[in-house]
């Protein structure tokens, strides 16, 4: 479903082949090493309780098969992760205690993930390898810490709450580590700041991470009473969670598609040049990332940039080739106000409407409201840039336009935004 197009602030083109950060290859390499190493080690020593390993491996595989993509291009496989956590935390099955090593846990999970991923790869939907590697590595950390001490905690004694607390603590720790890794990859990919992506990642992974952790712990502990049936029973609540998240991700994608498509009505109406809204939106997002904007702000920026010209629909005659930068300031102002009024009408996009309303104010602001929000300042610059350059990819022209924008930075345009724009444009292997 959601594999088709990137959600929110992740235009695929900001993934230039030449400038990929080191974190992602490092993490993937490490995951491959761990997988191969543990698999070899386990093959040599043999599998402990192969039926149990098989049951968990199958559940991991099925969970991976049903993976979903959350908004922001995040791939998760809740059921696979929960099953893996349960296998790492498994203490007894019925009254029979289990004694598999951490190596075996990692090997089983690695094989399960790989098998679950195969059908996806065969139909051409290869996973985000970074996310897949993170799933394996965070599980590895969990298993490596917990398996050696499994002898000291048991469900029989009075100490069940100790093991419960320990498990919960470990899950939280691994969630934090995983967020760090995800944030590092994301910061590299989007050319933005690590601190910002870390906060975004932690926030994005928290709800689903809590559901995964709770289910994993529950499966591990309840295997004492119910045996392997616990796997089936407690996958059910998680399945409900997954379905809810999946629908949420779908509607987010749909929303974006709708706004993208309808932002083109201005082009069809001959008000702006073909592709203008789309280009301004992509450029704005790249600039926003460069300036370290938060994910939620980037989404608003994308909506605002796509719809920034919607006010032109109320004009009687289209501006020549739609270039608002060439229109009189008063006219620009009115278009912005009209567009903002239209967007405000939706009742749900007030902050987007605000960005659109203030998109043509000078960088220091012109009323009593102070300077316009960063998003508005970015749209002002990127819109002017695209109006002046158009579809041309000529380097000289780009440089000349940048120069012109820069000359106006003391009043009209925000200097830091123009700098960020030029950084984005000068990036090697990038389309701009």
């Amino acid at each position, binding site marked *: 479903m959601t594999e088709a197009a990137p959600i929110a602030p992740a235009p695929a083109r900001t993934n230039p082949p030449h400038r990929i950060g080191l974190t992602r290859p490092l993490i993937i390499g490490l995951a491959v090493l761990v997988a191969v190493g543990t698999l070899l080690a386990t093959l040599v020593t043999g599998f402990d309780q192969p039926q149990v390993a098989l049951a968990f491996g199958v559940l991991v595989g099925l969970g991976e098969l049903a993976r979903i993509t959350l908004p922001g291009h995040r791939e998760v496989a809740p059921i696979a992760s929960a099953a893996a956590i349960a296998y790492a935390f498994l203490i007894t099955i019925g009254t029979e205690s289990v004694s598999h090593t951490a190596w075996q846990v990692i090997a089983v999970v690695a094989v399960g993930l790989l098998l679950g991923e195969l059908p996806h790869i065969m139909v051409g939907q290869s996973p985000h390898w970074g996310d897949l590697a993170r799933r394996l590595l965070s599980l590895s950390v969990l298993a490596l810490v917990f398996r050696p001490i499994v002898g000291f905690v048991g469900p029989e004694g009075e100490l069940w709450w100790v093991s419960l607390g320990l498990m919960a603590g470990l899950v939280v720790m691994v969630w934090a580590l995983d967020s760090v890794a995800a944030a590092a990859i994301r910061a590299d990919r989007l050319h933005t700041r690590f601190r910002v992506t870390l906060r975004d990642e932690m926030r994005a992974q928290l709800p689903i991470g809590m559901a995964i952790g709770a289910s994993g712990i529950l499966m591990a502990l309840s295997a004492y*009473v119910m045996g392997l049936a616990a796997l089936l029973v407690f996958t059910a609540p998680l399945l409900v*969670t997954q379905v809810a998240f999946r629908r949420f991700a779908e509607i987010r994608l*749909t929303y974006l*598609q709708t706004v993208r498509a*309808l932002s*083109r009505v201005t082009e069809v109406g001959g008000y702006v040049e073909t592709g203008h809204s789309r280009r301004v939106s992509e450029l704005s997002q790249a600039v926003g990332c460069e300036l370290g904007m938060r994910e939620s702000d980037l989404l608003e920026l994308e909506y605002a940039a796509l719809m920034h010209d919607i006010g032109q*629909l*109320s004009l009687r005659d289209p501006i020549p080739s739609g270039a608002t930068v060439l229109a009189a300031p008063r006219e620009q102002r009115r278009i912005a106000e009209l567009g903002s009024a*239209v967007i405000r009408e939706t009742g749900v996009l007030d902050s987007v409407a605000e960005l659109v309303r203030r998109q043509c104010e000078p960088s220091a602001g012109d009323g009593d409201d102070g300077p316009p929000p960063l998003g508005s300042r970015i749209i002002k610059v990127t819109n002017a840039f695209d109006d002046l350059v158009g579809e041309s990819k000529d380097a000289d022209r780009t440089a000349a336009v940048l120069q012109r924008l820069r000359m106006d930075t003391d009043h009209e345009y925000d200097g830091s935004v123009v700098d960020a724009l030029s950084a984005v444009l000068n990036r090697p292997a990038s389309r701009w």
Partner: protein
Amino acid sequence: MRALPVAARLYVGLVVLGATAVMVLGPFDGIDPGTLVLLAVLFVVAESISTLVHRGKTGISPSSSASLAAVVLVGPVGAAIVGFASCLIFRRQDLVKRLFNGGQFAFAGYAAGHVFQMLGGGVGVPDEDAFPWIVLPFAVAVLAYSLLNSLLVAGLLWCLGAVRIQRPRRVMWRPLATLELSSLGYGMLGLFIAAIWGAVGPFAVLLVLIPLFIARWAFDQYVSQQRAHDSTLATLCQAVETKDYYTRGHCMRVAKAAGMIADELGMSAERVQTMRYAGMLHDIGKLGVPTKILQKAGKLTEDEFAAIQLHPMRGYEIVREIDFLDEALAGIMHHHERMDGGGYPMGLAGEEIPEAARLVSVADVFDCLTSTRSYRTAWSAEDAIIELRRCAGTQFDPRMVEALVRAVDREGWEVPDLVEPDEDECVTHHEPEAPAASVRVAGETTRS
């Protein structure tokens, strides 16, 4: 509650009194007080969180699994006490509501407990050899619980006069089945909570409920995004027609009519929604037609008519990237086809025309006729129906026309009232809109 009807007062009183009697009379043997208190606390917490997360919606909440765990762990009387604890829920609610909720939960729990015991279930943490046969009596108990729960609430609503017993036109099986299934699912979890109570303790409930609460939260997010999406779509459609004061609201009315027809034809809820989208977006391509052609009062030249004929294709081009529109795309592209093959853009005839397009075409023309245009005043719904019937078979699909007639007969049709054009400087012109071109041909011939 101030103006509570006497019947409702009596009803609530009876429920609460009955529940209290059950709890006071006992018997209490076999109830572990610690477990009872923990269960009650968990039930209250779960119920509070679930109303917090999922505000204002009725339906079965995950907290029912705590109450059904009580059925197994502390028996019928214990379950009644746990259910009654919902009086203590953390949220603003008046006393009568609290008492009634507590009473009905207590009753449902008590009945479920007796059903469970009658069919051979015991009290206390079930031991391993009780599985899997314990599932049967428990499933029946869950059924009894949710049935009694619904009946008691329905009884109150009936006393309040909020619902009248009526034969619904079509019973909505799908949502009903979904609700029942989810409530059964939550209920069954109660058994498993009871089973692991010994090993994991009261935290079992929390661990089970965390994913469910998060699911509710995510589902809520989904619903609010869905709403945001719908209102954004509607607003952007309306923005496109702001220039033409006469066609304002056209897209929303066509969407409504299309939805009515689809409903009348018995389409599934999803398809009804798709038809609504098709109606909403059918004229979005109008924007690509030069304004001066749309505004032209006299007869159109060949070239101008060709330009107008482009608008369905333009519309299709704008929205084709939107995945969910799906069938609606065909409806947008072909809404000016005629059954006799004389329409545009492709000249399809009869069944070749996609169903969505035949539907939207009727909805579109119906709204055109019943609203005022710059060149004529609005027709009444009756006249419009006569006209539609006259053209059924040649221009329209008779099935769609009849469906519209039935729907309008039943629900009525509000003819849009026209407020005087405001002298907004940027909204200066009335464009007679393009579908009018074809309608005018049809309509004009009757009158001349």
